[in-house]
């Protein structure tokens, strides 16, 4: 498994020390200079998020680290938390300094409970080293972090659902606006960042924004971790500059024979072999880092069936397009598998998928039809007229 190579070269806490010696706007402008975008997949500019929270006037503010890594095929955050927890906690502390928050919450998914003990020990050590708590490194900054365990819900990776869970409610996404940077946890301004985003923020403060911007593409700066699994010789976590083509990535992971690749997890899109020249970047194929490789023998309908079972199970049930649409698409896949789906029916299902993309309340329902739509358009010869 590859780690963040820049970390080994980095002086521990260099980012934090740099942040402590600078004013809040300077920290945020350093992040802005790097062009860092959210590594969870949505790609929202981190500096803009921090700026909103910094500008908000409130008694309390929160930095929330989203470690509810639930997207199928994603495991990079687990590796970061296991191998470089300090970098994440340092990133949270820097964010706290930048927006004027004194409380941090690490939202760890229930499935990762086995990481908690180690993380608590790292937190305790950091408090001893005066990297957390009151008067960090004698700078006057106070910031502390606690761990909150999730209870097994994919939807809690959505930031407003995550906040609902923190507040003791069902993990049902809220309407946005207001955004969490304005009205977040307990109604206070809250920054919710992905684990990897915070780790990169710490690296950027240590090395400077231009260092980060020099990598990647114009619109997708920097490097990114990718979780690679499926039919390839070398699955694991990889670090590549953004803008890498699918073909290049497959070469690296020993999966060049693939017939398709699912980018961005179950909520992402399926890319068939003829599009392997496309790039992994926010301007082309956006991704949170999940890459699932499908070899020549894979039945794409079986893949689709698995994804739609997942969404049917994980839909929070709050809005109708998602609650009713996903089982309907699943039913359609079963009809295709049984070889009893007419073209008229398939077109209806595609129309339903597009309706869900528009009408669902949150990212889950808006993106769950992606895989269905991309598979039924790109693998039509494989899925129609099956003999069951």
């Amino acid at each position, binding site marked *: 498994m590859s780690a963040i190579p820049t970390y080994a070269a980095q002086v521990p806490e260099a980012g934090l020390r740099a942040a402590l010696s600078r004013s809040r706007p300077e920290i945020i402008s350093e992040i802005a200079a790097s062009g860092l975008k959210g590594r969870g997949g949505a790609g929202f500019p981190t500096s803009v998020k921090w700026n909103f929270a910094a500008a908000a006037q409130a008694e309390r503010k929160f930095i929330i680290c989203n470690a509810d890594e639930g997207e199928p095929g994603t*495991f990079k955050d687990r590796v970061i938390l296991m191998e470089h927890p300090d970098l994440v906690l340092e990133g949270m502390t820097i964010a706290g300094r930048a927006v004027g928050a004194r409380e941090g919450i690490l939202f760890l998914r229930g499935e990762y409970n086995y990481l908690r003990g180690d993380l608590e020990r790292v937190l305790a050590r950091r408090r001893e080293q005066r990297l957390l708590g009151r008067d960090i490194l004698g700078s006057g900054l106070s910031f502390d972090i606690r761990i909150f365990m999730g209870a097994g*819900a994919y939807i809690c990776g959505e930031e407003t659902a995550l906040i609902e869970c923190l507040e003791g409610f069902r993990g049902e996404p809220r309407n946005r606006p207001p955004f969490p940077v304005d009205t977040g946890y307990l109604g206070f301004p809250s920054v919710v960042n992905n684990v990897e985003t915070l780790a990169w923020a710490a690296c950027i403060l240590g090395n400077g924004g231009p260092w980060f911007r020099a990598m990647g593409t114009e619109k997708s700066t920097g490097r990114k971790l990718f979780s690679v699994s499926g039919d390839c010789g070398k*699955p*694991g976590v990889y670090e590549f500059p953004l803008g890498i083509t699918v073909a290049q990535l497959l070469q690296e992971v020993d999966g060049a024979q693939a017939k398709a690749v699912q980018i961005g997890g179950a909520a992402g899109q399926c890319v068939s072999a003829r599009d392997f020249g496309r790039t992994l970047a926010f301007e082309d194929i956006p991704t949170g880092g999940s890459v699932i490789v499908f070899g020549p023998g894979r039945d794409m309908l079986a893949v689709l069936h698995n994804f739609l079972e997942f969404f049917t199970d994980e839909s929070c049930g709050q809005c109708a397009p998602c609650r009713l649409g996903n089982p309907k698409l699943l039913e359609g896949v079963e009809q295709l598998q049984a070889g009893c789906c007419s073209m008229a029916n398939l077109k209806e299902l595609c129309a339903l998928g597009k309706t869900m993309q528009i009408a669902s309340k949150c990212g889950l329902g808006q993106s769950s039809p992606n895989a269905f739509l991309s598979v039924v358009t790109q693998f039509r010869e494989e899925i129609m007229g099956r003999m069951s």
Partner: protein
Amino acid sequence: MLMTERERCAAEIRALADRLGHDRPSLVPILVEVKRKYHRIDSYAMQVIGDLLGIHPVEVHSVVSFYAFLGDRHQGRFVIRLCRTISCAMQGKDRVMRQLENDLGIRFGETTADGGFTLEWANCMGMCDQGPALLVNDRIFTRVTPEQVHEILEECRRVFGVHAAEAKEVHLS
């Protein structure tokens, strides 16, 4: 439930609330601990929790029924969660499932009659490069093969008493 058991249960939940907080944001942490200790969250526990936090028991139930790790069904001491998401599925989770069902004599979603084991599905648990993966309570097993299933279950049976005693001390002091 015996009245004495109820009283003990209520006292333990009260101690939990004293430690974790009496406000609504403490709800999920309290529920996680109760589930760990009792292997279920029954309606009595929900009433006690609702009372302590100043919310209606129905509110507690709405949260309990939402999360996969909570739920009011009784579970075994060892909850085995097998990942069913795509990467683990492509690496042979079906055969592991079959062997778990064969060795325990129950289907997924069920609990053994002795209260020892529960079989449950899990959605992606972040071990996609090392599947099939399963969790036994908080312990992760990767690259599980059907023939390893027996040894995993035997290991649980060996630590049965120790494990139960540990859980009591650690979580509800």
